[in-house]
């Protein structure tokens, strides 16, 4: 297990590159880019090594650092959990980050941007934090790095701080996600308070569990009724399942924020203000995936709560459809991609909610590849177009920049979900899972699954449409502007990453061709095996994070069961056929509408819907109103109250005393006779008072 001893270096290398770039960047060639490339390259290599080790059946779950040593109270530690899931995520993150670093040479350095050290420092810090989040073995550590990636996102979105847009977008991104993280934090505190640990997977020594994980504890509490040690339940006065559902939903708040799910999705489109490589890395492939990854990471905790599952599925399905519709009418290429990203993460949530753990991870993987590809392709186009992102100013670029075109096409086919590109396999599996579990389960769960499935299915059509609308507008037809006629060229450092990802986008789907596997009976659903682990013993027994166990939990506890009216094969093929057909239909419609030398805008046909889509369902408006229209005025009122009433009382006391002082000194009239009078009066009063008390007269 030598790989695991070096595993921390995966996180630390990019952090070092962050320090190097920040403090030495402007004294280095390429402003610190090389440091970043070297670091991420190293991390990539180590990740591969780790992945291989995991493939060899080895897993690792240890504490490496004690953050707060609690005395007579919970101790808070950092630790690494390296199992198939995190190993896979490590690969994704390091790979994309590595490619993005290279791409940035073309996108930033060649464009003579200023502040490159800041840029590469940001990338380095982000990569480090993201990797830290991925390997985290407990909820608190995950939350901390979750926040750190948020910071990096803020810094990188706001990279061009001299303009007005980016800082505002950065603020919005951090604020909206922070709102989600607020619930996440409550969830973290709640989990630790409830179970006394935030561990995702139990830590074992020689087969003995030395530190139990909270999903397992929760499972025991719900399944075996072992609630003795959980004092929190009495405090809140809820049953275990209910309370765990509450906790799960609280954590979900952070997920919805980071993975840009409805209603906290509004920050992501604005985040496109950042440099395109950043969008590719952070806002498509990795950070946005953090939310989904978190749910997958602690899936055992959600799997025992049907309510949470239903919510996740519904949110996912709705977001998938909702975002896709908005993507239909956008004119900037990156906007289209942004909404498609939201939509795609909706699919992953749908999968997780509807018991498709593997499907979700699968789609997470493929999406990371092809969406990074699409963004980088868009980046290349943007370079060519001198940073003009409006697709209506493009056109006919495919001959000028073939590499970009074909890579982009591959990514688009994947996104649209066309056979045999990656997206097809994963998206199909997602929908399949939703369908069969919707058919198989009972009650509200089933209903919500079916509804979610329907929305997801409909979204497939829109996805196909907006994807190919984008492709045609950008690359096909006649160039519509001079820049499009004579685009700025791009160099190897742009083409290289595109090529790599282009190939991957076409092929990565093959890691889990479930339909083929079912048909041929050949065991080629590698990802399935990867996440399922060996039948008994091995890492699943140790970590209890295998999809097989999740399946049992879903079935036994949450009551998620599969129903296949047309038999397993039939149902499988049917669902595949439906989704593929819809995707093709969407693509076809786009083709008919936007093919040809000079396409025209058809969005007006949508009528009032167009305005609705264009304004993103007025989501931003109401959220901005909540901030500036409601909270800020309230704050003003409270300020008035503070100045007027609270402080007014304080000042009032002093003015009253001074006023009474003014009155009192008037007694001193200056006339000595009055003094004698008052003196006598005082004496007489005392005499009278005491005389009456003492009964002298």
């Amino acid at each position, binding site marked *: 297990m030598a790989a695991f001893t070096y595993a921390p270096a995966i996180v630390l290398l990019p952090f070092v590159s962050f320090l190097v770039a920040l403090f030495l960047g402007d004294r280095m060639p390429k402003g610190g880019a090389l440091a970043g490339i070297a670091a991420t390259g190293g991390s990539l290599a180590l990740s591969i090594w780790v992945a291989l080790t995991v493939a060899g059946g080895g897993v690792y779950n240890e504490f490496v650092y004690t953050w707060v040593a609690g005395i007579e109270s919970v101790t808070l530690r950092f630790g690494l959990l390296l199992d198939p899931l995190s190993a896979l995520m490590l690969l994704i993150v390091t790979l994309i980050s590595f490619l993005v670093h290279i791409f940035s040479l073309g996108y930033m350095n060649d464009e003579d941007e200023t502040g490159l050290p800041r840029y590469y420092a940001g990338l380095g810090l982000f990569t480090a934090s993201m990797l830290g989040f991925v390997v985290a073995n407990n909820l608190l550590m995950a939350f901390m790095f979750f926040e750190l990636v948020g910071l990096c996102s803020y810094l990188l979105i706001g990279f061009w701080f001299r303009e007005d847009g980016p800082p505002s977008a950065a*603020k919005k991104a951090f604020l909206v996600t922070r709102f989600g993280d607020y619930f996440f934090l409550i969830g973290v505190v709640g989990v630790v308070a409830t179970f006394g640990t935030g561990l995702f997977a139990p830590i074992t020594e020689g087969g003995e569990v030395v530190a139990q994980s909270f999903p397992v504890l929760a499972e025991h509490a719900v399944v075996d009724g072992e609630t003795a040690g959980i004092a929190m339940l009495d405090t809140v006065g809820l049953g275990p399942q209910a309370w765990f559902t509450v906790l799960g939903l609280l954590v979900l708040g952070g997920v919805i924020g980071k993975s840009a799910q409805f209603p906290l999705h509004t920050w992501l489109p604005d985040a496109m203000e950042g440099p395109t490589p950043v969008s590719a890395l952070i806002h498509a492939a990795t950070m946005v995936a953090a939310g989904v990854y978190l749910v997958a990471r602690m899936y055992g905790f959600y799997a025992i709560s049907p309510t949470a599952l239903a919510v996740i599925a519904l949110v996912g399905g709705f977001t998938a459809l909702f975002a896709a519709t908005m993507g239909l009418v956008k004119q900037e290429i990156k906007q289209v991609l942004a909404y498609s990203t939201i939509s795609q993460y909706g699919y992953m949530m749908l999968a997780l909610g509807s018991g498709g753990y593997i499907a979700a991870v699968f789609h997470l993987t493929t999406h990371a590849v092809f969406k990074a590809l699409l963004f980088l392709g868009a980046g290349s186009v943007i370079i060519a177009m001198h940073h003009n992102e409006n697709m209506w100013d493009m056109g006919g670029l495919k001959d000028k920049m073939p590499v970009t075109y074909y890579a982009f096409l591959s990514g688009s086919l994947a996104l649209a979900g066309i056979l045999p590109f990656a997206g097809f396999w994963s998206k199909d599996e997602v929908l399949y899972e939703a369908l069969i579990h919707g058919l198989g389960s009972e009650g509200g769960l089933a209903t919500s699954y079916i509804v979610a499935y329907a929305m997801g299915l409909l979204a497939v059509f829109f996805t196909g449409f907006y994807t190919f609308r984008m492709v045609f507008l950008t690359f096909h037809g006649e160039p519509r502007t001079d820049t499009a006629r004579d685009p700025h060229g791009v160099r190897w450092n742009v083409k290289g990453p595109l090529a790599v990802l282009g190939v991957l986008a076409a092929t990565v789907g093959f890691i889990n061709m479930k339909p083929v596997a079912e048909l041929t009976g050949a065991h080629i659903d590698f990802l399935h095996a990867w996440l399922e682990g060996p039948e008994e013993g091995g890492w699943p027994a140790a970590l209890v994070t295998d999809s097989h166990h999740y399946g049992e939990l879903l079935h036994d506890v949450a009551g998620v069961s599969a129903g296949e009216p047309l038999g397993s094969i039939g149902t499988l093929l049917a669902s595949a056929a439906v989704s593929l057909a819809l995707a093709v239909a969407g693509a076809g419609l786009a083709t008919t509408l936007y093919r040809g030398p000079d396409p025209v805008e058809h969005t007006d046909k949508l009528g009032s819907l167009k305005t609705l889509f264009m304004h993103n369902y007025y989501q931003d408006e109401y959220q901005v109103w909540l901030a500036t229209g409601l909270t800020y005025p309230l704050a003003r009122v409270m300020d008035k109250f503070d100045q007027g009433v609270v402080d007014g009382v304080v000042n009032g006391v002093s003015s009253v005393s001074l006023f009474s002082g003014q009155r009192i000194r008037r007694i001193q009239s200056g006339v000595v006779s009055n003094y004698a009078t008052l003196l006598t009066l005082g004496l007489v009063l005392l005499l009278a008072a005491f005389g009456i008390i003492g009964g002298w007269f």
Partner: protein
Amino acid sequence: MVMVAALLAITLLGAGVVMLSPDRYAGKLAAAVSAVPALLSVYMYWAYLTQFEGTGNALLQPGDVAFGQQIPWIDFGGLTISYYVGLDGVSMPLLALTTILTTLAIVSAWTPIDERQSQFYGLMLFMETSLIGVFSALDFFLWFVFWEGVLIPMYFLIGVWGGPRRKYAAIKFFVYTNVASLVMFAGLFALVFSTDLTSLALPAMAEAFRSASGLPTVFGMNLLTLSFILMFFGFAVKVPVFPFHTWLPDAHVEAPTPVSVMLAGVLLKMGTYALLRFNFTMLPEVAQQLAVPLAIVGVVSVIYGAMLALAQRDLKRIVAYSSISSMGYVILGLVAFTPHGMGGATFQMIAHGLISGLMFMSVGVIYNVTHTRMVGDMSGLADKMPWTVGIFVSAAFGYMGLPLMAGFAAEFLIFQGAFDAATLGSAAPVLTAAAMFGIVIVAGYLLWAMQRTLFGAFNLETDYTVSEAPFHDVAPLAVLLLLVIVLGVNPDLSYEMIQNSILPVIDLGGGA
């Protein structure tokens, strides 16, 4: 051990020397003088970590107090007052915070303070003396001497070198906090005389109050409760807690920046420190009876302060109100009576001391350059002074509770400790969650302020060229930022000793 005496003597004599020194050298001289106690206290800190492993609470185990010294002083009509000092895990970090922050504040004053320097720096050192005394005194009257002694330099520092409304702010701070001290004194002494105390040493008091019985009923409530309330008021003004906070924004806004640094960084901690020492260590039962109302006070302060910060335009006012908010967390943590709750509250004193000091200092550095603190008067400063702005942004995120910075550690521990606090019962999760919402609001106003002032196209009408601040302005910021990060990455540097000294208090309450 005469360590504490040495600290007091050096700063006091230094104050005298600096006062008499010519203005030209006063700043450098003061920095040099204040460096001595700073280094000394760092050494003491190190010694504490290495030699006094697991030292208990100074009030509850006076036996193993560090750097202790006791000399009988005054016979006060049958009550013995003594020069009695000593440190434990609670006071040691606060002492180090005081000395370090004073040195940095003095350095940061070189630029803005341009008249009557010798008096200014002399008073700063005099204030340091009092603060050291407050955190190290273990005899009530000695402590009270220093507690009141802080007012005098503060009055002048605000009144002489402050902003336009400095006179109002100074006298308000002066009288308001003095009234608070008097009320607190009344509450405490009502108890002192109702027990058979012969000495005013804090440990003796703690002992006597806990075992006090058969106390009279005054104004319809047990004397213990009455005293607790009076003392709480006395300290709540200093903290400050809603609704006794209104002196703070004025004082902060009018005070010169180095003074604001001390005010937010250390003076507010006097209040929470005293709450912990007196109300929560001496009267734990009452504290637990009143836990829920007190927690509500804390939560209200958190939200109220944050909301008010949202309404401000003056950067200093923003930080001032957010200090109220952060201090609210401390109250919440204290009433929890759990290790992480009380420990986190104490740690928050350190963390907030560093971070708010850092915030005020960076605001001050920006002000030195731009001569305005108003959000909206300026924009795009990041263009002109990247390092200052970089540190400012880091400080702001530290204030928002960014992980791996001290603020997050403190706030998380408080939340963790309060969430299942037995003293709060089933209200605990709700109150904690409510308090947590502060982290959203704080992000709101700080991000908004940063966007308006630091980013966007540079715009500021000046008749000089705006450029990066001098090194001696930025250096203190860097040091503080470093400390914030170090404590955020490894809280146990302070938190371990804090816990060791807090646990006895919790055992009193029967909490945890």
